[in-house]
C-alpha cells in the first residue's frame, strides 16, 4: 500500500476529505519526528516504539581493495514492533 492509497483509505474511514487527512497526517508525522529529534522515544500502544539509536564510529575494510574507512558515528531511527502487533501479524500471516 503506497501513500496515496493509505491517505484515501484513512479519509474514507474517518469521513475526512483527502486534503484534511493529508494535512493532519503530515502534522502528526512532523510531531513524531520532532520528538525523535529531541531524543525522545515515541511509543504507541499496541503498535510499537520509534526510537533513535546511536551507532558508534567504526572502521570498515573494503575486502577487494583493502582500503580502510573510518565510518563516523550516526543516529539511526529504529522501529520496534510491540508484542501485540507481533502476535497479530503472526496469526494473520499464518492464516495466509
Amino acid at each position, binding site marked *: *500500500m503506497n*501513500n496515496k*492509497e*493509505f491517505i484515501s*483509505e*484513512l479519509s474514507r*474511514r*474517518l469521513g475526512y476529505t483527502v486534503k484534511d487527512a493529508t*494535512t*493532519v*497526517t*503530515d*502534522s*502528526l*508525522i*512532523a*510531531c*513524531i*519526528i520532532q*520528538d*525523535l*529529534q529531541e531524543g*525522545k*522515544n*515515541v*511509543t*504507541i*500502544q*499496541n*503498535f*510499537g516504539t*520509534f526510537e*533513535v539509536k546511536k551507532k558508534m564510529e*567504526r*572502521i*570498515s*575494510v*573494503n*575486502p*577487494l581493495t583493502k*582500503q*580502510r*574507512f*573510518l*565510518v*563516523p558515528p*550516526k*543516529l*539511526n*531511527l*529504529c*522501529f520496534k*514492533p510491540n508484542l501485540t*502487533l*507481533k502476535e*497479530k*501479524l*503472526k496469526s*494473520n*500471516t499464518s492464516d495466509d
Partner: protein
Amino acid sequence: MTDKTIRQDLIDFLIEHHQMEPADAEAFVKAFFTLIEEALVRDRYVKIKGLGTFKLIEVNARESVDVNTGERIQIKEYTKVSFIPEASVRDAVNKPFAHFETVLLKDDVHFSDMPESSENEENTVEVQDVPSAENASNSVLQSEPVSEAPSRMEKNIVMRLPWCMISAILLLGVLVGGIVAWMLGSGRRYIPESMLHCYFENQKPAETISSDKPDSVMLAPVVTVAVRTDSVSKKSVTKTDEKGKTAKEEISIRKENLSDTVEYDMTGTKTTYTLRSGESLARISLKFYGNKKLWPYLARYNKQIIKNPNNVPVGTTIRIPVLVPKRTKSVERPSN
C-alpha cells in the same frame, strides 16, 4: 516521562494545532496506526510519505543451539517488521552528526580500541574457502606466512633490543652517577682499613732506609708508637735528652707520616704554604704530615687567616705548624 512520547501526547499535539475535537483527534491517531497495521497484514508493505516504509520480511526457519542446554533447536520461520525511514527523516534524526564524513584511513593509522570489520563478510569467507579446496595452492599459501612470521619476529626483536639497551645503560649511568655524587657529597672516603695498613707498611721500610734514626720517625699508627715507646723506654734510662732530639728530628724531615690516634702540640711554624686551586686543608695535611685527618691542627694554627676551614680561598698563605706528640703520654707510658 520526559524522554518518552506516548499516544496521548500526539493526540494533545493534534488538538492544539488543528483545533480538533479531542475525540476526533484520538480517533484519527488510533485509525492511523490501526490502518498501518491492517495494511501491513494485507499488502505486507505500507509506504507513508514523510515517515518511511514499513515492510514485513519473512525469516526462514533455521537451526540454532539452545544457549542453556546446548541442544540443537529449530527456529521456525517468522516474519519481522522492518522499518526504513525516509531519507529526509533519516537526515533530520541524524542532524547532530551530519557533519561527519567517512574518511579513508592511511595504512599507518591504527586504532587499538576498535575492531576492524570487513564490509561484506560473506565475500571474505568465499575467498577463504577457495584455497582450502585446492590443496596444492593451500600448501603454498600456508608456507608463505610461515616464512614471513620469523622475519617479522626478528624485526620486532631488533626493534626492541635498542630500547632495552638504552634503558639499561641509562639506568646504570644514573645509578653510578648517584653513587659517585653521594660519595663526594658525604665527607667519607671508602678506603678500607687494611689498605691503609698496607700503604703504611710499605712506606715504613723505605723511610727507615732513608732516615738515619728510624725510631725518631713516627710511622704507622699503633705499631710505630709501640716501637717508639720501646726505644724510648730503653734509651730513657741512659739518655734523658734523647726525646728532645727526636722532636728536633721531626722538624728536619719534610714529609712524615703522623698518626691521628695521638694528640699533638703545635710548636712553632715549620714553613708557609700558599693554597692553589683544588687544594683543601685536608690535602695540605696529607702533603705535610702524610695524614689528612690532621687538618684541624692547620685550621687551629691559622685561626686568624682561615675563617671557614671548609672553604679556604685560593691564594691564601697559611703557616704549617710543627706537630709534636704530647709529652705527657709518651713519658707516662714507659714509666708504666
